[in-house]
């Protein structure tokens, strides 16, 4: 009956309650939607990076990442690649031969990371083959071919079919050269990536270095991000002397960006709620001042102050939760819709590109956010209710009832 009373009480002044409810609804809707957009951006940065080159899991020789030395290759790399392909939930595996070198054209030279791939494996592991703006990925299977980024092409003034001279430190000789023909130009979301990375067939590298096949990095793509911990465990147990890392460990800055977006959303919503607390408090205070006489009667006839206190808290919670729920529902519907159709960012994409975000943005909000928010709303309601509730329990019945 106390619950019914509280619920009925909030509808006594419909206009006043509606205003707070609408404020809460739109405040939270705006907060959640912006949060979802930010998180969608974070997710997009992550997925873009995973698709472009990170993949889900990478394996290296433990020293490789600090030394970046050609000699630090994975022992039995090609065999391991074959073994990995057989593991359940591993979608594809690409063994990469990595060399730091220089790319030179008649116009200029530039330091690049030469990524030697098995074109078939690389095609299923990363998305470069889909990001060619000119040329054909298939030609990479031929001898002495190279695929470069748009930015590097501009820098070195290269076109399709131009020649590039790659030079790098060899294993046996000091410096080796190879002349390659540009067969493809790619453009990813990151201009920095496009400038710094070139793709060649690893067979060319093996020949020039005069070595049996060597692999420095194995990129593993899983069926789903969810499989990462499970596969990590399997691989760590199986290949004890290799460094095996998830994308989060390889690119902590990207993982950080993604989690910061989530934290930022919490902060954002918390700030909105904090501002709304004042509105709720004010409304409840007005409502109590309107009902001083009634509270006086209730206290007089024997309603304990703790019950009065509870009633005010309940009223505030009902008011807040009604608005909060409405805000969450319309936010959920909007986000759900936008997460399917996406938001086209191409208008402002020029500035987003250097940031590593795709042009289509898919807002997203984890379910846990709604749960956490519900708790936050109830908490906020309790905070908002304290002052009005204290006011209500300190009503002096003899004074309040007096009609003079």
């Amino acid at each position, binding site marked *: *009956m*106390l619950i019914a*009373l509280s619920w*009925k009480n909030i509808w006594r002044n419909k206009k006043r309650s509606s205003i707070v409810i609408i404020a809460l609804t739109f405040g939270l809707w705006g907060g959640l939607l912006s949060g979802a957009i930010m998180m969608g951006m974070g997710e997009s940065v992550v997925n873009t990076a995973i698709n472009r080159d990170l993949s889900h899991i990478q394996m290296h020789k433990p020293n490789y990442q600090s030394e970046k030395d050609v000699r630090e290759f994975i022992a039995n790399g090609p065999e391991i690649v074959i073994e990995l392909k057989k593991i359940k939930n591993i979608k594809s595996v690409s063994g990469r031969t990595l060399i730091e070198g220089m790319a030179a054209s008649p116009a200029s030279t530039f330091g690049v990371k030469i990524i030697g791939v098995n074109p078939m494996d690389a095609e299923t592991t990363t998305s470069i083959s889909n990001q060619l703006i000119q040329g054909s990925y298939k030609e990479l299977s031929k001898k002495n071919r190279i695929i470069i980024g748009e930015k590097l092409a501009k820098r070195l003034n290269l076109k399709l079919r131009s020649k590039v001279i790659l030079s790098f430190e060899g294993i046996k000789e000091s410096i080796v050269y190879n002349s390659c023909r540009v067969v493809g130009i790619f453009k990813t979301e990151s201009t920095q990536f496009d400038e710094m990375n070139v793709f060649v067939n690893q067979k060319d590298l093996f020949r020039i270095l005069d070595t049996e096949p060597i692999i420095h990095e194995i990129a593993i793509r899983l069926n789903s991000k969810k499989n990462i911990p499970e596969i990590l465990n399997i691989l760590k147990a199986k290949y004890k002397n290799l460094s095996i890392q998830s994308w989060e460990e390889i690119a902590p800055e990207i993982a950080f960006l993604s989690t910061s977006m989530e934290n930022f959303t919490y902060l954002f919503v918390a700030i909105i709620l904090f501002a709304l607390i004042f509105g709720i408090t004010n409304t409840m205070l007005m409502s109590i001042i309107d009902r001083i006489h009634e509270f006086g*009667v209730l206290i007089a*006839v024997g309603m*304990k102050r703790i019950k009065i206190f509870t009633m005010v808290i309940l009223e505030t919670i009902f008011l807040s939760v009604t608005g909060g729920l409405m805000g969450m529902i319309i936010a959920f519907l909007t986000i759900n819709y936008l997460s399917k159709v996406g938001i086209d960012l191409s208008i402002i994409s020029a500035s987003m590109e250097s940031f590593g975000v795709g042009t289509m943005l898919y807002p997203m909000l984890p379910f846990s956010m709604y749960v956490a928010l519900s708790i936050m709303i109830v908490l906020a309601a309790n905070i908002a209710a304290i002052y009005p509730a204290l006011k209500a329990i300190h009503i*002096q019945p003899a004074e309040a*009832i007096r009609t003079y």
Partner: protein
Amino acid sequence: MALIEITNLTKIYNTKTVPVYAVQNINMQISKNEFTAIVGPSGSGKTTLLNLIGGLDEFNEGKIVLDGIDISKLKENQLVSFRLKKIGFVFQAYNLIPVFTAKENVEFIMLLQGVSKAEREHRAVELLKDVGLEIKINTHPSQLSGGEQQRVAVARALASRPAFVLADEPTANLDSTSAESLLDLMEELNEKNAMTFIFSTHDPRVMKRARRIITLLDGKIDVNHMKS
């Protein structure tokens, strides 16, 4: 032993300018089954006295013993429970919770007392029948006339089976017909159910219905008159 025993009761309001002696050195006793009116001109201290008897306000001097209990010795929460159990209140106006129906208003008191739902509902209906409102059981206060609202208030006051009912100017906002019929109801409850009523008024027509009249003047008892 009297139901209500008041000795040397004094209540002073500390206003900014001069202290107001709203109730001054009052001594009186009220027994079970009385039908007593506290009368006097406006400002004579009727409301103050009833509030003190009802344990709604603190006093400066004296003693109030209700049904054998010295209420100044009770703690805040005990006093609230005491009011809930022992005293029925009817105020001048706006007695009821507007969002509740007549029945819910009567039930609410019993809810506070922890009475079971079935018994609450049963008793609320009975009480509303007693006050002649069986057809308005599910009506909200705003749909009731002033007289009907006061009848619901009386039903609510009786719901907790109190030792006595305090009614501060219960007829002040009523027309004379409604006032008469409310008095009829109270009188009937007093005679049939032996319920003690102490009510205040400055209406001569209401006064003459009382069996005992205590007249206040400037916070002091002027006349204490028992009809034979």
